[in-house]
């Protein structure tokens, strides 16, 4: 019997997109805007490909169904090669994937956003979302921490946020040749020193694992309930479809069940 030919409709095949703008944010990070027009939730991510280099999950830092913005830190092969691209260059994207922040279910709440370093990127999507749906949410407070003043992301955007929201920024270190008017120290200290109660509030946290652990401990001391806290987890992902296994946290797939988790869904997972 002859071999049967099967045409494969692959879920791994990304779409070609064009870079519309390129903004350098800091010495090791940049933001690109691409013409990838899909509906998505804030907090979801896409898989970005450069053929021959590879593929990596990148969180979406905008909220629009007409374009997509990605903030990328140069830490690996793919991201270092992405940094070399220019406006008009092509790359490949598939997605969006994962569960984002359940913004619709959280209408009517006051919002606290706590971000550290490149963890601010997925949180930026929430702010875009709230700006487009301002009447649905109460007060918005942002605590953002960066390593040094030179590492502060989205500087132009943040100036605009300051007009509508309560924005606090801290830097971990203040090198001799830099100037910064805000507090020096970890973002966790700002949260700790702030008088906040848990009344009608939800908290969105994203940052390095150690920072998120400390923030959650502080929030628990301030009597926040587990179901008021949402974190965005980072793991290695290859497929983003719930197959490849790399992103599994204690039986949950970060790419399907996350990357945004309500803290009560993840707290038993013992950082596995």
């Amino acid at each position, binding site marked *: *019997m*002859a*071999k*049967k*030919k*099967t*045409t*494969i*409709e*692959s*879920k*791994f*095949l*990304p779409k*070609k997109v064009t870079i519309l703008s390129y903004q350098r944010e800091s010495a090791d990070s940049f933001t690109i805007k691409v013409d990838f027009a899909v509906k998505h939730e804030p907090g979801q991510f896409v898989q970005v*490909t450069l*053929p*021959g*280099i*590879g*593929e*990596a999950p990148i969180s979406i830092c905008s909220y629009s169904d007409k374009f997509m913005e990605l903030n990328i830190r140069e*830490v*690996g092969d793919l*991201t270092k090669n992405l940094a070399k691209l220019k406006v008009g260059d092509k790359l*490949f994207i598939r997605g969006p994937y994962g569960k984002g922040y359940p913004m619709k279910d959280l209408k009517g709440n006051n919002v606290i956003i706590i971000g550290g370093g490149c963890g601010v990127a997925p949180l930026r999507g929430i702010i875009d979302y709230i700006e487009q749906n301002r009447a649905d949410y109460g007060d918005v407070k942002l605590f953002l921490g960066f390593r040094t003043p030179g590492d502060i992301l989205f500087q132009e955007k943040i100036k605009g946020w300051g007009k509508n929201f309560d924005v606090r920024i801290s830097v971990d270190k203040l090198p001799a040749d830099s100037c910064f008017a805000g507090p020096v120290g970890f973002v966790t200290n700002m949260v700790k020193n702030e008088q906040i109660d848990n009344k009608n509030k939800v908290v969105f946290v994203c940052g390095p*694992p150690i920072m998120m652990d400390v923030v959650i401990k502080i929030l628990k001391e301030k009597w926040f309930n587990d179901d008021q806290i949402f974190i965005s987890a*980072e*793991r*290695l992902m*290859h*497929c983003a*479809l*719930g*197959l*490849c*296994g*790399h992103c*599994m*946290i*204690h*039986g949950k797939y970060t790419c399907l069940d996350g990357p945004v988790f309500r803290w009560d869904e993840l707290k038993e997972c*013992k*950082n*596995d």
Partner: protein
Amino acid sequence: MTNFTLSKVDLNAFIKSLSKNFDVYAPVKDHVVDGGSVRFKVVSDAKVICLSENAYYPLKELFFRKKEVLFKYSEKGLEVPVKKVKSKAILGIRRCDLHSLANQDRIYMREVPDPYYIAEREKTLLIGYHCKKAEEYCFCGSIDLQGNADIMLYELPGNKFLVEVHSDNALRLVESLKKIFKKTDIVIDAESRKIEGSNRLQKKDVHSFYDNPGWQEGIDKCLSCAACNFHCPSCYCFNIHDEANVHNMKEGERIRTWAGCQLKSFTRVAGEHIFRDTRKDRFRHRIYHQLQYFKERYGTTLCSGCGRCIRFCPTKIDFIDILNRM
């Protein structure tokens, strides 16, 4: 359904007849190529089939390929290759491997339909073989085995098989071969469906063992080689990476290959952070995925009790022993 008998002398005629429509695979003990190990291979003669030993290499390699080209890239763009596959008939699949295949089917055909897997798996005829006695490392009796073959063969006295038929297609096939399949009234009772000596795992519910000091015993001997993953008929994790054509670096393939959660790189993200950094984290994760996570999500254990992960472990870490002592 009616049962049949098949004389072992007629096995060859059965294979010849199957070969008209299928690539017929069966376990073969090959001293020349595989150093005496048993592996599912295409056969044309019943003489080479080895039913007395479980296959060393898992059946999954016929469907969930060790290397799968997801797409090709070049300056022209991306292109998914057309897959050319011949239908397979696989003879001599033990209960453990049927369970694993059912798990892989669940993942790759139903939960997240994967066209690459489905193309390989479609129209496959499964012919199971009931082994009577457990081998040294088997513990399938402790597992609630799932999965069915189209045809199931049981040993009968007098150099014969009892043939149970479980699908309409298989029944048509068996009835068309009247010369070799004889109708019979013999039925297999519940006792004969058990596999003797295979009930080694007493502690199947691992969820309270997370912080148990007992894990240390396995970890002390683990080399992080992932032989357990690659011999496992159920493990379904994979890596994706690009392979450039060395003669023209502008073109190449994006490929999917088997992955092993016991390797340190399995959870390494850019910036060199490794989420399961210690052998303890990785060993425990494997056992939890096999016995708890998969069951919580899909209702059956991922583990089939075949014991290959112990048999092919270079330091023979017997996780059954370790769990039983917890």
